[in-house]
């Protein structure tokens, strides 16, 4: 797979090859991002594969992934670059005698003393990369404003060193869990992609891709139950990764079907809050009991 895809279908194929099944709009938006050099803003509930999309894109395009995990209080020194002042200090001490100030100054503000942080790494990289800015909604607005310059021009200005421009166009993904409204200015510069929980058939395909040994019938039951659980009002609805984990767990247990008992024993794989457990046992347990009868009738008929 070469670095510049020619069509959305090619991206889709590439993603599939590394184990990520995108829907059509995901493939289309990824393709546009690569083609137009615009960042993608990916939003959606937790656990629908937002971060995984970036990882898989990097893998399928043969690019390095540079990841910046955002958190409250993230600042430029941790995101862009920092001067390694300890090393600078030692340098000054080492040749305190004799050397003129100008000499030393030229010397200590060189690349040697620069600590690259993720954004800088992505810009300065000689090879094209995929830059993932994860959970951008966790940072404050000041940081967002700083990103604007970077995302529109792909360059960083360091006062002592000059301007560093991107030689290659990184693919940039920003993910957000929608805990905070992002600024209009940032949204304007991005392509927008909304990822939701996949449709039943789509998730079935995903589960079958990652747990191919699992019986088709069991896999179908599994995604049906998962979508049932997602419809409940839970603190943390099961993610796609958890569906896959559950499929693997069932495989290990050698389960032939998902009945009320198997479900009760293994549901901690997909439901991880004590109160959620209660809700799920109550609501889905009953449904499973009922569904079993109709299922039995159908297979007998």
């Amino acid at each position, binding site marked *: 797979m070469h670095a510049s895809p020619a069509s959305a279908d090619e991206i889709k194929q590439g993603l599939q090859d590394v184990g990520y099944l995108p829907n059509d709009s995901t493939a*289309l938006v990824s393709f*546009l991002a690569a083609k137009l050099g615009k960042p993608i*803003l990916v939003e959606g509930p937790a656990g629908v594969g937002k971060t995984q999309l970036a990882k898989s894109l990097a893998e399928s395009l043969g690019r390095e992934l540079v990841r910046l995990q955002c958190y409250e209080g993230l600042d430029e020194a941790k995101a862009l670059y920092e001067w390694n002042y300890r090393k600078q*200090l030692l340098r000054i001490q080492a040749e305190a005698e004799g050397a003129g100030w100008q000499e030393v100054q030229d010397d200590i503000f060189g690349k040697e003393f620069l600590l690259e942080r993720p954004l800088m790494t992505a810009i300065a990289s000689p090879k094209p990369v995929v830059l993932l800015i994860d959970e951008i909604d966790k940072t404050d607005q000041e940081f967002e404003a700083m990103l604007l310059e970077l995302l529109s021009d792909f360059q960083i200005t360091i006062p002592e060193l000059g301007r560093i421009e991107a030689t290659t166009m990184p693919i940039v993904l920003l993910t957000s869990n*929608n*805990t*905070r409204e992002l600024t209009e200015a940032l949204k304007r510069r991005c*392509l927008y992609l909304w990822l939701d929980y996949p449709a039943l*058939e789509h998730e079935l395909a995903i589960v079958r891709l990652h747990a191919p040994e699992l019986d088709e019938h069991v896999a179908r039951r599994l995604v049906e139950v998962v979508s049932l659980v997602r419809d409940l009002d839970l603190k943390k609805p099961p993610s796609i990764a958890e569906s896959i984990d559950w499929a693997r767990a069932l495989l290990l247990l050698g389960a032939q079907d998902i009945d009320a008992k198997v479900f009760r024993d293994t549901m901690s794989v997909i439901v991880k809050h004590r109160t959620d457990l209660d*809700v799920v046992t109550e609501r889905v347990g009953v449904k499973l009991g009922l569904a079993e009868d109709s299922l039995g009738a159908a297979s007998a008929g």
Partner: protein
Amino acid sequence: MPPQPASGGPGSGHPRGTSRRAALFGGTPQGELPGGLAAHILEFGEELRGEGVAVGTSELLDAFSALPEVEWTEPAAFRGVLATTLAKSPDDQRIFNLVFDRFFFRAVELAAIQEGVSEAGQGGSMDEAGEELNLEALRRQIAQMIADGNESAMRDLARLAIAAFGQQGEGSGVIGVDVQRIRRQLGLRGEPQPELPQEDPRRDGLPRDGIRRFEQLLRQELERRQIERTEVLPPARPLNELDRALPSGPLSDLASVHRVVAQLKRRLKTQGNEHKGRKRHAHVDVRRTMRASLETGGVPVVLKYRPIRPRRPELFVVCDVSTSVTSASVFFLSVMHALHDSFRKMRSFVFIERVSEVTDVFHKERDFKAVSEAIGKDAGVADISGYTDYGRVWRELRDQIEDELHPRATLIVLGDARTNGRDPAADVFAQIAAKAGRAYWLNPEPRLYWNYGDSVISAYEQYCEAYECWTAAQLEDFVKALTAPDSARR
């Protein structure tokens, strides 16, 4: 213009559609945007703005630069490109979808009328074909396609179905009625129909989404035919509020209240710190500074400070649960529920005639429904009449929490300030508010009704900040107002 992707002809799945498009746009080669289309897209952007989606010029430019990169003559790609460049939030995308369907459907029909393109010629042969068609086979085929979710096949079959069933008897002229009649004749149902033979896909019931989608296609096709017959477009309707309102129940409301309260917590926390930071210097932590200095040869280059502990906000929430605020009480309780999720140092009270502490109820129960039931049952706040008595409530509250209030505490009152003609005891409330550092009043009534009738909010407003608040959006406004500089009344 970048090189064109080679492709085996657009839309090979539905040839009729392609021929229509070719006729409309004069068979423009792929990849170049015909001038007419650009105008259409600009109009579309205008229409989105009309529905409240913020579409800027830069977004439209993005759409134009993105379209030639894909095979935009494919409906899915065309829609996908416009969606990703123009609509940038879940809400906007929902509105985008509604507007897109409406706008391009109308644009195509208008062009068809202008250019005189019509399917009348084909229509005749279709009707004949319809009579020869084995109706039962058609039913089964449609059911199969719905079960498979095959969109383009469904579109074609919708036309066939109208040809086969639509003309039997006179159409009612009302599209909705016709759609339901055709659906019934096709025997499309969500529930299983065990009397049907084994191989019939309808036997196990069809996916409801698929049926709904098929109905939409039927409706579209019927509308198209109607326009073709009368050669006029019906007037455009703006999306009504029902269409665009999020499909929300109380549950999703609960989630949004929780989200806003999480923000509130952050804001309450940081607000206090600013004051503190300006007034007091942080202390140098000598031990950590010495240790750090070893890295630089014993020169203390990096001063290590004792961390400034974020002060923990303490909340006192007092909530009216009387009948005059029944409509808002679910919202109020969900606010309290969410507050309890975020704050550990918090005490909550409910009141009607007298006040009762419910902190424990919230600590024990995590389920929202159980909490509201427990409060309804055991709080014991109604005494004799069941009408709110603010005077008594403030006096009781003062006795209960007076000793615990301090300047760093925040008091939030949720209530409508309707005293039923009783003494408001604003002076007692003033004492409580003065002991707490900040006091806020969230009133579920529109500001217009404040101070009318028995509402005495103005008496309390002198001692606290009052906000109108009965939706999650307004709660968000309240949170925003909290962060605005100088919002704290001192």
